[in-house]
C-alpha cells in the first residue's frame, strides 16, 4: 500500500521473550484467554463491528501519523485480534511480537474511539484482551514489565523500600512544617476521615507533592492518615501490562490498607489510571460485591474542600491556563465538570481546549504507554502531534492536569514540539492561591 515502514525499536522485553515462544504455547494461551476469560461483550463487539472506520478520526495516533491506517483503532484490532481469532492455532512468535508492539505501545486504551463508534464498541477493551494474551506469553515491553515486577515484589511501582517511604514522608513533613506550623503527615492513624494514597513516583521523584498535600490538609483541617506499610501506592501498571493477577493483588493491598486503618474513605492523589484501577478494573477482577471503602479522586476532594469553604482562595492564579482532562477520570468517571469548577475557582484566565471533556484527546502517555520507557518515547511523542496542536491553539502558558501520566506525557509533548508551556498539577495551583491563616504560618 506504499505505507512508510514502522521504525524498528529494540526492546529486550520483546526481543528476548519472543525466542521462547512456540506455536503450541501461543495456541494454548490464546484459546484459554478467548474461551474462558472474555465476557459476553467480547463476542458482541467482535460480531457487531461493520468496519465503517468512523473510529479512526478519534485516535490521536492515527491523526498524528498522517492518517496511516495501521494506527486507526479498528486497524489495530485488525492487525491483532482479528488475526488471532482467524488463525488462533497457527500463530507465529514474530506475529505476537507485533501484537505486543501495537497493543502496548500504540494504543493508550483511552476509550476516545468508543465515543466515536456508532455501535459503542469498547475498542480499548479489545486491545486489553490482546495485552492480556501478550502478558500471559511474557511479551511485554521491558520497562513496563519492570514496573509490574516491582508491584509484585514491593507492592509499589518503583521499587521503593519501606524505610525509604517512611523517610520520605518524614522529610516532607519537615518541609511542610517549614511553611505551616501545624502540618503533619499522620502515619497509621486509625479511624481517620481520609486515607490518602499516592502513586509511587511521588516519593521517588516528586516528593514535594506529598509535602504540598500535608500543607493543604493542615489548612483544611482534615483528619487524615497515610500508611507506613504496603498499600500506600495506588498505581497499577499490571492493569495495563495485562497481568491481571498482580493487578488484583495491588488493588486488594490498597483497599485493605485503608480498611486496616479503619479509615472512613480513601482519597486518591492526582492520578487517572490509579483511580481507574481502584474504582473499576480492580474490584471487577476481584469479583467484589463493592469496593469496601468509599473512594474519591483528588479532583472530587479539592472540589469538596473549595466548595465547602474549608479551603479559601486568597487570590486567583493570573497566568493563562488550559487543562488536560485525564481520560480515566473525565471520560471514565465524569469528573470533567468538577475539574472545570475548581479551575474556575482558582484561575483567572482559563481557555478550554477544543475538543474537551469526554471528547478531549488523550495525553499519549496513559494506558501504560509512557511506562514502556525510553525505547518508545520517540514514537509516543510523534503519535500525539494533534495534542501539541490543540494545546498550542489555547495560547495558554500553563497546562493543568490532575494526573501523573498526563503530566509526564504533556511535558514530553511540550519539549518535543517546543511549545514553551509548563504543566502543573492542580495541587500546585492550589498551593499558590489558597488562603493560609497567619497563625498557621511558620
Amino acid at each position, binding site marked *: *500500500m506504499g*505505507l512508510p515502514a514502522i521504525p524498528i525499536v529494540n526492546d529486550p522485553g520483546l526481543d528476548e521473550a519472543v525466542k521462547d515462544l512456540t506455536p503450541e504455547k501461543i495456541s494454548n494461551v490464546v484459546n484459554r484467554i478467548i474461551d474462558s476469560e*472474555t*465476557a*459476553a*461483550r*467480547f*463476542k*458482541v*463487539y467482535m*460480531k*457487531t*463491528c*461493520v*468496519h*465503517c*472506520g*468512523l*473510529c*479512526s*478520526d*478519534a485516535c490521536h495516533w*492515527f491523526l498524528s501519523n498522517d*492518517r*496511516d*491506517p*495501521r494506527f*486507526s483503532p*479498528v*486497524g489495530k484490532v*485488525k492487525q491483532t485480534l482479528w488475526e488471532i481469532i482467524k488463525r488462533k492455532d497457527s500463530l507465529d512468535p514474530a506475529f505476537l511480537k507485533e501484537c505486543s508492539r501495537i497493543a502496548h505501545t500504540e494504543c493508550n486504551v483511552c476509550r476516545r474511539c*468508543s*465515543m*466515536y*463508534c*456508532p*455501535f*459503542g*464498541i*469498547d475498542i480499548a477493551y479489545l486491545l486489553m484482551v490482546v495485552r492480556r494474551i501478550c502478558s500471559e506469553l511474557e511479551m511485554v515491553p521491558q520497562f513496563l514489565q519492570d514496573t509490574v515486577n516491582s508491584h509484585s515484589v514491593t507492592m509499589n511501582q518503583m521499587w521503593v523500600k519501606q524505610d525509604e517511604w517512611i523517610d520520605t514522608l518524614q522529610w516532607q513533613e519537615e518541609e511542610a512544617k517549614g511553611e505551616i506550623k501545624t502540618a503533619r503527615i499522620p502515619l497509621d492513624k486509625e479511624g481517620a476521615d481520609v486515607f490518602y494514597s499516592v502513586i509511587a513516583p511521588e516519593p521517588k521523584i516528586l516528593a514535594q507533592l506529598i509535602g504540598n498535600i500535608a500543607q493543604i490538609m493542615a489548612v483544611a483541617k482534615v483528619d487524615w492518615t497515610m500508611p507506613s506499610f504496603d498499600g500506600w501506592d495506588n498505581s497499577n501498571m499490571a492493569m495495563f501490562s495485562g497481568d491481571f493477577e498482580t493487578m488484583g493483588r495491588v488493588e486488594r493491598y490498597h483497599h485493605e490498607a485503608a480498611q486496616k486503618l479503619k479509615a472512613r474513605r480513601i482519597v486518591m492523589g492526582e492520578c487517572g489510571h490509579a483511580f481507574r484501577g481502584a*474504582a*473499576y478494573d480492580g*474490584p*471487577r477482577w476481584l*469479583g*467484589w*460485591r*463493592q*469496593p469496601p471503602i*468509599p*473512594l474519591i479522586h483528588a479532583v472530587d476532594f479539592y472540589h469538596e474542600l473549595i466548595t465547602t469553604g474549608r479551603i479559601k482562595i486568597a487570590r486567583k492564579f493570573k497566568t493563562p491556563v488550559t487543562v488536560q482532562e485525564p481520560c480515566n477520570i473525565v*471520560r*471514565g*468517571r*465524569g469528573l470533567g*465538570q468538577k475539574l472545570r469548577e475548581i479551575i474556575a475557582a482558582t484561575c483567572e484566565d482559563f481557555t478550554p481546549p477544543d*475538543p474537551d471533556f*469526554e*471528547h478531549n484527546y488523550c495525553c499519549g502517555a496513559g494506558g501504560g504507554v509512557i511506562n514502556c520507557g525510553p525505547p518508545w518515547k520517540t514514537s509516543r511523542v510523534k503519535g500525539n502531534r494533534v495534542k501539541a496542536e490543540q494545546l498550542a491553539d489555547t495560547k495558554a502558558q500553563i497546562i493543568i492536569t490532575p494526573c501523573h501520566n498526563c503530566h509526564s506525557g504533556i511535558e514530553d509533548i511540550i519539549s518535543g514540539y517546543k511549545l514553551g508551556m509548563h504543566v502543573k498539577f492542580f495541587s500546585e495551583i492550589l498551593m499558590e492561591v489558597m488562603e493560609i491563616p497567619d497563625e498557621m504560618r511558620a
Partner: protein
Amino acid sequence: MENHVSYALHILEEPVQYLALAFMALMYIIKISQMLKKPIPPEKAELKGDRVAGAFDSLLNVLKPWSMESTRNNPYFYIEFLIFHIGVALTIGATFFIPLFPSLMTLTVSKIFMIFMGLAFLIGLRRIYRRLTVPEIRIISSPDDFFAITLMTVFFAVGFGAMSLWIKGSPDTGWMWIFFLMTTFFLLYVPFSKISHYVLYPFGRINFGRIFGGRGVLNKNVKAPSWNPK
C-alpha cells in the same frame, strides 16, 4: 395495485420467504443465546449517574447525530447513513408489502419506495468506492464487507427495477423473480454476515450506555442513580 402472479412466483414470494425468515430467526436465537452464555460482569463502583437513562440515551443516539462527535463533525455521512438504512428498510418492506398487502402500495407509496431504493443504490456505489479507495477503510475491509455491500447495492437496483415494472402492471417479471430470489438468499445469508449488526447493535449500545451512564459521563443532568447493583 394488484399482484396477480404465477403459482411458482407465489410460492417464492410467500412460503419460501416464510421458511427463510424462520431460518433467520432461529439462527439469531442461537447466536444471541450463545452470546449470553458468556458472563456479563457488572460494575460495582459507586454510581455517579444513571445506568438506565444512560442505556436509553445510548440506544437512541442513532437518532441524535449531534450527540456523537463522528456524526456531529460529519453531517453528510449521517444523512447518507440515514437514507441508506431507510432504503434497506423499505426494500425489505417491499418484499412483504407486494405479496401480502398490495393494496397499500399505491402509486405514490411505490414511488417513495423507489426513490429511497434509487438513492440507497447510489450510496451503495459510493460506499463500495470508499471501501476501495480510502486507505483506513480498505485496510480493514474483509471479503464479507465487499460482498455484503455489493449484494445490498445490487438488491436496491433489482428492487427498483422490479417495482418500476410492477407499478406499470407487470408483477410477474424476471426482475421480480430475481428480487425475491435475492431476498431469500439474504434471509439465509444475513445471520452469518456483518449485516447482522442490526440485531446485535443494541447489546453494544446498551452496554456502553450502562457503563458511561453509571459513571456520570452521559446524562449529566441526572442527579439520582436509578439502580444500584449491590
